[in-house]
């Protein structure tokens, strides 16, 4: 337990210090959301209708962008070798890294959501619905994205390859995330159904992600 706590503490403090990328993700999220009206036009009713979708797309892209460094930094400086060799099961170490990443990069996105909801003229209920679905859904994005990050590091390719690998995997999360937000705002589907599926997706990825990432790290390091 000490080992995992130490890993989580280290990753969070690196993300928050000079050179860390935690808050850049939020800035990216903000920028993506601000770009949308320039493409769609400053039509508030339209933006309000598309609001949940815009916020979800922005959060998806922002969490993908920050995932790139999840394993790469540790690979470059040799830390990953020692983590693989350690007595802590690699699956748990991967889960701890993903959890730290979600706390440092995913949670700020959710905190920023109300401000961005204001820009899209979402009312309080709609904004809370989107924030709640993001809270339930972003762990799934991080934990499935981790698989792509692990594959990318063993192939020595990052960035775009990661995006191509991970984006198709996150389609279900996007579908049920937006569906749950829409259901909370306007109906007619009850909120509970898509939201439960969204939570289920997160729980499944919590299990599958660390195992798949650990397997690809174990066989791919050289």
């Amino acid at each position: 337990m000490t080992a995992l706590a130490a890993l989580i503490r280290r990753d969070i403090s690196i993300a928050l210090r000079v050179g860390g990328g935690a808050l850049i993700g939020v800035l990216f999220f903000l920028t993506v959301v601000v770009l949308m009206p320039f493409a769609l036009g400053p039509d508030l009713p339209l933006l309000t209708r598309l609001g949940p979708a815009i916020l979800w797309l922005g959060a998806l892209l922002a969490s993908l962008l920050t995932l790139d460094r999840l394993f790469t930094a540790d690979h470059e400086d040799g830390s990953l070798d020692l983590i693989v060799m350690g007595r802590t099961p690699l699956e748990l170490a991967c889960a701890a890294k993903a959890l730290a990443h979600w706390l440092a990069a995913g949670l700020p996105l959710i905190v920023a959501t109300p401000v961005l909801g204001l820009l899209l003229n979402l009312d309080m209920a709609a904004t809370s619905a989107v924030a709640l679905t993001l809270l339930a859904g972003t762990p799934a994005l991080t934990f499935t994205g981790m698989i792509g990050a692990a594959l990318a590091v063993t192939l020595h390719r990052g960035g775009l390859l990661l995006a191509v690998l991970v984006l198709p995997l996150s389609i279900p999360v996007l579908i049920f995330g937006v569906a749950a937000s829409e259901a909370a705002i306007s109906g007619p589907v009850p909120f509970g159904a898509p939201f439960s599926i969204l939570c289920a997706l997160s729980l499944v990825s919590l299990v599958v992600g660390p195992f798949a990432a650990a397997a690809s790290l174990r066989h791919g390091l050289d």
Partner: protein
Amino acid sequence: MTLIDLANPSRFLSLTARLLPYLVAGTVVLLAIGLYLSATAPDDYQQGATVKIMFIHVPNAWLSMFVWAVMSASALGTLVWRHPLADVAAKAAAPIGASFTFLALVTGSLWGRPMWGTYWEWDARLTSVLILFLMYLGLMALWRAVEDPARAARAAAVLTLVGAINLPIIKFSVDWWNTLHQPASVFRMGGSTLDRAFLYPLLVMAIAFTVLFITLHVAAMRNEILRRRVRSLQMMQARAASNDVGATSPASQPA
């Protein structure tokens, strides 16, 4: 005293140490007068008391652009003259400029609330200020991302100047985009003609905020200079003494 003397950070520190109390006092007095004049200014016959938000909003909006101009001048100092204080000035100005821009956005949306019925409208002016705010945040992220201040300074200087050239283009594009979608803006901020009863408080507030910026900027520059001194002292400390301590008998280590 010439500019060359001021270029010396130690000289700058001792000069500003004497100057800073006067700046603080000036800011307090000017702000007090400005706030009093704003509070006693008459209500607008159309907008009522909300017009008074203008006395805070307009100075903030003015400073959001003025600070970028200050940073652009510093960027030239960094790139052309390699002035030792120029990158300190640029770095210290960025968070202050971002704060003024943020306040301009907040007061703008509070002012817009009774006019538009929503806190945010994609009005051409507000949108331009929002983009300026994003650029400030990007610049601050750049300063934070690079550990070595000298390297960060050159990158930030290039970005600042590119931003200065791009800002009018962005402003023009946003105006065009906005008029394309909304033929007539419902509400123009600042208005074209201002009654004298509003003009004087506004002028005093603008001057007060400018002096406030100068005070904050000087204080932030002092902090940045001291922070850099701490950094170079730490680097010297890291370099020092490694060898002689390392020579203590390795046999003394715990087995």
